[in-house]
């Protein structure tokens, strides 16, 4: 796989971010950080310093050091990631402002003068206590979700599915005889459904899980070729607007990415795959392009 990103880049100084080009039209960038790899207290202080007062307050309200750290890293990752794209001029991560859309989905509140068009950058974050990720696209809504592969659930897979998933999905999970495989497939399905809802940006109740099915479309030789979503409420044209990728990150997490398809590829006979580039980062310290390495295994997409 061709890698057109530097393998590993160390920051020039302790407070700089390596600038990067915005993703292209059909491209998605994914940045992630592992909290366990960030231990330096002064670095964490530096991160705290770039947050807004409200964000700092929210971080400090979290109950427990691990939770505080992942909350801190989530906001740090969003700010530093967006700042890298240096739209128009250098952006200080501290100066970014955010707002929520009508349904509560966070977006950048660009502080440009009225005659400048806001850049069409979209982002979405997801975090677990062990991994924090931020996806970025241009011109395309995006939703991502990450979960630990071996995350425990208190209910059985099937009781959970019967309560929240669609009939087709329940049948799919029920047909898996190996309980370990069933659990992994459940987690994958959960991340895909979450990513879709987050991409839609309408919140959990905007697209209740039971009202749509995510399934793997098989090609002519019965191999899973594509992840598709069928919605009971939305007509087919609208659900075919979304495309999915599912990855295994760092051997420990599943990451689902849902992005809007564009007119050109939606009309095309074959599904044009989005190019995905993945970086592992410790903001202000090191960025490592991990696409094509063992850290990123594409499951679908």
């Amino acid at each position, binding site marked *: 796989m061709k890698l057109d990103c530097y393998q590993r880049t160390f920051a020039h100084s302790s407070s700089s971010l390596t600038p990067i080009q915005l993703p292209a039209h059909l491209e998605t960038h994914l940045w992630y950080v592992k909290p366990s790899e960030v231990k330096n207290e002064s670095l964490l202080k530096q991160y705290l310093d770039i947050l807004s007062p409200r964000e700092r307050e929210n971080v400090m309200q979290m*109950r427990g050091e691990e939770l505080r750290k992942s909350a801190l890293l989530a906001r740090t990752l969003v700010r530093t990631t967006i700042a890298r794209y240096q739209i128009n001029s250098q952006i200080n991560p501290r100066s970014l402002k955010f707002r929520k859309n009508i349904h*509560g989905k966070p977006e950048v509140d660009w502080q440009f003068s009225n005659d400048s068009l806001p850049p069409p950058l979209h982002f979405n974050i997801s975090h677990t206590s062990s991994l924090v990720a931020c996806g970025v696209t241009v011109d395309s809504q995006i939703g991502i979700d990450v979960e630990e592969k071996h995350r425990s*659930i208190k*209910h059985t897979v099937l*009781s959970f599915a019967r*309560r929240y998933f669609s009939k087709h999905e329940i049948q799919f999970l029920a047909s898996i005889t190996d309980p370990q495989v069933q659990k992994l497939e459940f987690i994958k399905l959960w991340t895909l459904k979450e990513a879709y809802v987050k991409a839609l940006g309408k919140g959990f*109740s905007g697209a209740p*899980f039971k009202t749509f099915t995510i399934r793997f479309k098989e090609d002519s030789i019965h191999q899973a070729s594509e992840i598709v979503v069928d919605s009971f409420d939305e007509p087919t044209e609208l659900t075919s607007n979304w495309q999915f990728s599912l990855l295994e990150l760092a051997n420990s997490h599943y990451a689902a990415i849902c992005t809007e398809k564009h007119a050109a590829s939606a009309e095309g006979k074959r599904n044009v795959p989005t190019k995905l580039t993945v970086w592992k980062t410790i903001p202000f310290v090191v960025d490592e392009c991990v696409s094509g390495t063992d850290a990123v295994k594409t499951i679908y997409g």
Partner: protein
Amino acid sequence: MASFTASSVSFSCISFSKQNQVSNLRKASLPLSGKGFSSHKLPAFRFRVACAAKPETVTKVVEIVKKQLALPADRDVTGDSKFATLGADSLDTVEIVMGLEEEFGISVEEESAQSIATVQDAADLIEKLLEKN
């Protein structure tokens, strides 16, 4: 996320004449915006103290939350505790809702589930749904 206290919806613990009760408050999916009371001249703040869920309900919710999030038994969790600050992610939240449904024999709609931000919100919603039953 809206986090109104249920004081704006559970009328049953206030003593005032039956004809003032708005019947559609019994629906679980009523938006918690307090719009239901524009016809009542009672100020919202008076409900806050009188309408909280029973302490036993709050205790049960705390128990379920602690179990779901694997919190130590001595961790301080109260009605004011927010699920998010306790570390509940979306999967935890739906499992907590399932746990509450099982424990109390209720059924929570997605819209209501989304409006739960604190332990108190959950307890108040449970009581409202129990009344409905």
